[in-house]
C-alpha cells in the first residue's frame, strides 16, 4: 500500500483549511471566488522565489483568507493582531500541560 504520511504537515495547516472550508459551507463566500483569490496570492508570492508547497502554500492561503475577511468586515487586521497577541500571551503564561485560555 501507499506509504503512510500525514494529510496535513502541521496542525495549523489543518485548522486553516477547516476554517476556510467551513466558511464556504456556511455560504460566507463561494469556492471559485476563493480559488481565484488564492491563485492570485500564490502567483504573487511565486514571482520572487520557488514555493515549497508546504508552509509557503498555507502562508499564502492564510494571507488570502485574512484579506478576504478584512474586506468583508468580519475580522479587521487590527482586531486580528490584538487577539493574536492575546493568544501569544496566554500561551506564555499558561503552565505546560494546562489548557490555554484567553481569560485570566
Amino acid at each position, binding site marked *: 500500500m501507499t506509504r503512510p504520511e500525514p*494529510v496535513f504537515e502541521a496542525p495549523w495547516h489543518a485548522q486553516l483549511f477547516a476554517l476556510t472550508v467551513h466558511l464556504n*459551507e456556511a455560504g460566507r463566500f463561494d469556492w471559485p471566488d476563493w480559488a481565484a483569490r488564492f491563485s492570485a496570492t500564490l502567483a504573487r508570492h511565486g514571482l520572487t522565489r520557488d514555493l515549497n*508547497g508546504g508552509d509557503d*502554500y498555507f502562508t499564502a492561503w*492564510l494571507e488570502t483568507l485574512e484579506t478576504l475577511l478584512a474586506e468583508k468586515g468580519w475580522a479587521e487586521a487590527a482586531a486580528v493582531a490584538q487577539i493574536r497577541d492575546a493568544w501569544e500571551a496566554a500561551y506564555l503564561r499558561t503552565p505546560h500541560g494546562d489548557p490555554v485560555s484567553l481569560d485570566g
Partner: protein
Amino acid sequence: MRVKALETILTEKGLIDPAALDEIIDTYENRIGPRNGAHVVARAWSNPAFRDALLTDATAVVSELGYYGRQGEHMVAVENTDEVHNMVVCTLCSCYPWPLLGIPPGWYKSDAYRARAVREPRKVLADFGVTLPEDTAVRVWDSTAEVRYLVIPQRPAGTEGMDEAALMDLVTRDSMIGAGLALKP
C-alpha cells in the same frame, strides 16, 4: 496563532461553529482520500462500459458514485497505455480533485515538482522509481480549476481474476496523478 485569532473573532461574531472545524478535519484526514479515486480506477479496469463512460464524462460518472463536492467538478479521466503515460501537474491551486484523491501532498504543490515535471518528466518519474519503455510517450497535463485530471493507470499483469475490492489496493495516489504506476499483485 494568526489562525487561532481568526477563529476567536469569527466565533465571537457567531460566523463559525468551532465544533464544525474538527469535523471537517476528521473528514478530510480519514474519509476523503485516494481510496475514492482507487475505487473509480478499479471499476474502470473491471467494467469496460464504466471505463468508456468515465473517459467520456468523468464528472458525471464519479458524481454518481458519490464523489463530488468542493473541487470535484470539471473532471477529465486520461488513460495510460503502452503508447502513452499521462502525468498531472498543478498550475496554481484549486486544481486537485479533493473528493477523489483527498488533500495533495506538499511536494505536489511545490514549484520544483511542477517545473521539473514539465521540463524533464522522465527524470521525475525516475525519482519515483518509475522507468518507462523508450517508446512510451509521456504527456504532462496542466491541471486547473477548469479541468482536473484523473489518471487511470495501466492495469498490472496478473490481475485477471481479481475483483474490484482487491484491485483497489493496487491503485496508489501517485499512480492516479501519473507520478507512479499501479502496484503489482
